[in-house]
């Protein structure tokens, strides 16, 4: 055996130190991503919060219909967290059919959320709202803040739906196991919890 083969551990069992967290590196990687993403959303929301409180002419563009739409979106997203939990449980107990059922439900609820969100957006575009336009004559920062923050969140939801489709396909083909589904679930719950800040800050703070 050559020196390079010895150095690479060829023919020997590689000794790896156990993770101090007690779980695999996928999950730790996802947690690191979640922490950094939480800070990104935090920066957006802090910036918006200061502008909102500091601007007396901000205006309150959302009628109760928009708030009701936001409440339905919240219920849909929270329900999807529940179906995701059920899917993770099913994969951990090797109930493939049940896991598939709940994963499809989660993907469906995520899609419903995205459709409701886009419907709201297009209705606002129709009224003249835009990134740099305010049809009420108030500060243009409202559109910039609203579409940036909700757009960033919507991107996360759509990415999550795509990621769940890929993970489910891999799980059914035996390429991925329950830890992959659990890691995807962590991301999905995070997206759900971010909405718990986006909804009150972007919708309720601007309710008429």
């Amino acid at each position: 055996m050559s020196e390079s083969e010895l150095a690479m551990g060829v023919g020997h069992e590689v000794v790896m130190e156990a993770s101090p967290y007690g779980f695999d590196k996928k999950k730790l990687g996802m947690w690191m991503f979640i922490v950094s993403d939480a800070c990104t959303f935090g920066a957006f929301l802090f910036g918006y919060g200061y502008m909102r409180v500091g601007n007396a002419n901000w205006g309150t563009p959302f009628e109760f219909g928009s708030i009701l739409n936001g409440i339905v979106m919240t219920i849909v997203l929270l329900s999807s967290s529940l179906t995701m939990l059920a899917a993770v449980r099913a994969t951990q107990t090797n109930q493939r059919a049940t896991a598939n059922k709940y994963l499809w439900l989660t993907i469906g609820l995520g899609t419903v959320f995205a459709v409701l969100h886009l419907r709201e957006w297009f209705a606002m575009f129709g009224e003249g709202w835009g990134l740099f336009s305010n049809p009420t004559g108030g500060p243009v920062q409202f559109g910039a803040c609203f579409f940036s923050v909700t757009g960033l969140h919507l991107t996360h939801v759509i990415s999550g739906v795509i990621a769940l489709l890929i993970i489910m396909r891999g799980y059914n083909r035996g390429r991925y196991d329950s830890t992959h589904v659990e890691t995807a679930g962590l991301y999905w719950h995070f997206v759900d919890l971010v909405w718990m800040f986006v909804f009150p800050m972007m919708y309720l703070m601007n309710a008429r």
Partner: protein
Amino acid sequence: MSSKQEIGMGSYVGIVIGLMVIVGIEVILTYQHLPVGTLLLALLCLASVEAFVGVMYLMHVKYESPLLFWTIFPATLFVLVLLNYVWPDAYRMARMSLGH
């Protein structure tokens, strides 16, 4: 896999319903026409409670090693608190440039 015994699906349903109730309280508070600063503070406090419950139960931090909690929470809070120092200054400078 989590190291401690997790709660059943029924308890998770209860937690999610609890989160929906908090959202309901937020909506009710919104229509009390509180001053903007007070409303923002109230909504942020309620959203923080929701996030904490969600992270601990839905994201299973409660059932993982305590090391995970102590790795993510202080670091995230530290960054968010620091942001809170940066933004008021940015806001002050923006107003200065407008001649206020």
